[in-house]
């Protein structure tokens, strides 16, 4: 199968981040890392490609920087990457993002598109749904397990109470939760191989997409400090008070 995995480079979550004072956009350093949630997508893509003697192409939109995060995914084993880095897309909203990614995915050709459920730096969580709609293919979302059953894809969709069994014939879009598969560590050989894998850097225009950012961030405010919690001194009956509080919160 031809698998396309949507991946995103994000600032290393371990280092402090800053917002641009004028645009309120996240300031992105040269060296970004592969979004942790995307590792599951890449691993899932590699697993499907290995089972079906297929290929894995990565599609990514955002400032390319040193491409460190993309190379991480290539080092895991993906075959090639398309990176759409276009100054006109700075601050693109999710629909604009989905349009651009859809154009790149269509140009690659695909049987399956895989994405994480949401990015760790943006958290909108709607781009894969929009891509499925724009591609006009079924969406298998929140997969905690993915199986290929003959010519159908069957997933277990994570729900609050357990899971739904959902299936569709490819072409389709799948979003995977962390835990769907255990991402492999890139090997040294993989890192060296990634050096010479093709990374196609294009603008939105080259994909035939004319879309503007579509949103403006007017202001950013700090979330209110959380109020201090209640401290319960234990005089032998603290457990009763705790149970009472949990009941009030409708947790138990």
């Amino acid at each position: 199968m031809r698998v396309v995995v949507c991946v995103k480079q994000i600032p290393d979550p371990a280092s402090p981040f800053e917002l641009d004072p004028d645009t309120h956009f996240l300031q992105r350093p040269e060296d970004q890392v592969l979004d942790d949630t995307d590792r599951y997508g890449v691993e899932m893509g590699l697993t499907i490609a290995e089972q079906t003697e297929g290929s894995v192409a990565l599609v990514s939109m955002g400032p390319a920087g040193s491409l460190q995060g993309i190379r991480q995914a290539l080092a895991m084993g993906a075959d090639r990457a398309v990176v759409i880095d276009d100054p006109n897309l700075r601050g693109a909203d999710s629909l604009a993002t989905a349009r651009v990614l859809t154009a790149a995915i269509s140009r690659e050709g695909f049987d399956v598109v895989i994405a994480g459920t949401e990015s760790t730096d943006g958290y909108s969580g709607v781009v894969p749904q929009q891509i499925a709609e724009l591609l006009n293919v079924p969406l298998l979302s929140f997969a905690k397990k993915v199986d290929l059953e003959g010519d159908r894809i069957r997933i277990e969709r994570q729900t609050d109470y357990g899971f739904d069994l959902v299936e569709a014939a490819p072409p389709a879009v799948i979003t995977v939760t962390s835990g769907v598969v255990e991402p492999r560590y890139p090997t040294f050989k993989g890192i060296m191989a990634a050096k010479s894998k093709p990374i196609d850097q294009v603008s939105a225009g080259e994909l035939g997409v004319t879309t503007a950012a579509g949103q403006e961030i007017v202001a950013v405010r700090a979330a209110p400090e959380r109020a201090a919690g209640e401290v319960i001194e234990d005089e032998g009956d603290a457990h009763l008070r705790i149970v009472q509080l949990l009941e009030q919160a409708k947790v138990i």
Partner: protein
Amino acid sequence: MDFEPSPEHEAFRRVIREFALAEVAPYAEEWDRTHTFPLETVAKMGDLGLFGLPFPEEYGGSGADFTTLCIAIEELARVDQSIAITLEAGVGLGANPIYQFGTDEQRQRWLPDLVSGRALAGFGLTEAGAGSDAAATGTKATLDGDSWVINGSKAFITNSGTPITSLVTVTARTGPDEISAIIVPAGADGFTVEPAYRKMGWHASDTHGLVFQDCRVPAENLLGERGKGLRQFLTILDDGRIAMAAIAVGVAQACLDDSATYASERSAFGRPIGSNQAIAFKCADMQVAVEAARLLTYRAAWLKDQNRPFKQAAALAKLYSTEAAVGATREAVQIFGGAGFVDETPVSRHYRDAKVLEIGEGTSEILRLVISRGIGLPI
């Protein structure tokens, strides 16, 4: 001059750091406490290609340079020396002699499993009566028809008794003035692995005494040229010294990181202990030592990668880095106070583990001897 590691070296370092934090750090205290050799983790390291880093692809290796191996060893040692020495000895002392001196058949037979981490090999040089003075080897091997018959014993042999140990190469006297190296497969008749030593540190690393009683192995198990065994083993140790230095760099770095954090967080007399020069300067000195050790170590690795002479550089790196590491663990425990003496903090484990770095693969005294001779002194 260029001391910039390649982007690939850096990418690999990040992978190993992540691996070490996820797969080793959470368990290191338990392995230490229970003296567990972590087979599953070793298998994961095998999957990651670590045991095959410096070997060619035809044996399943990665074809990486020695610097890459040192990076992996350093990053593992930052969280656990036992796992780092398992890799260092597995590659440097286990597989390397077979690769360097083995015949085509010997390489084909043993290397693929060693390189993939499915098997480990030991390096049997030291004996109760022959440590620094390795030429005093008392173990004997005599040719009887098409077999070597080996009699004698070895002491302190790393990776020699794990469930996946496939062989031990041993030095033995094969004539009056002749020491040769012979491959002894695990389970060979007359080959006994003694119970593991009770050690002061490196609890999760496998160390045994070995006994050979009329142990018979095929004549073709001779490794390299007859009579060249000792010289071969000493060459292997030159590589090993750089890798041991890499362990030391990792340990010293871990002590610096932990000490700096603790010195900023721990308060006494109403202020962080790190606001006292007595404590802050310990950290400053530690950083000097870490950086100097790292430069010596990676310069020795670089010389080796450039196919330049590196014997002296390897001795300098091992001597300085291991003594720096032992010093760093001592100061780290001091900075942690009582908390550094109990096994709940990694610094206490680092302290117990580090001492042997000044002993294995050439004691500090023997290294000073090697270095003095390298300078040209009549010693």
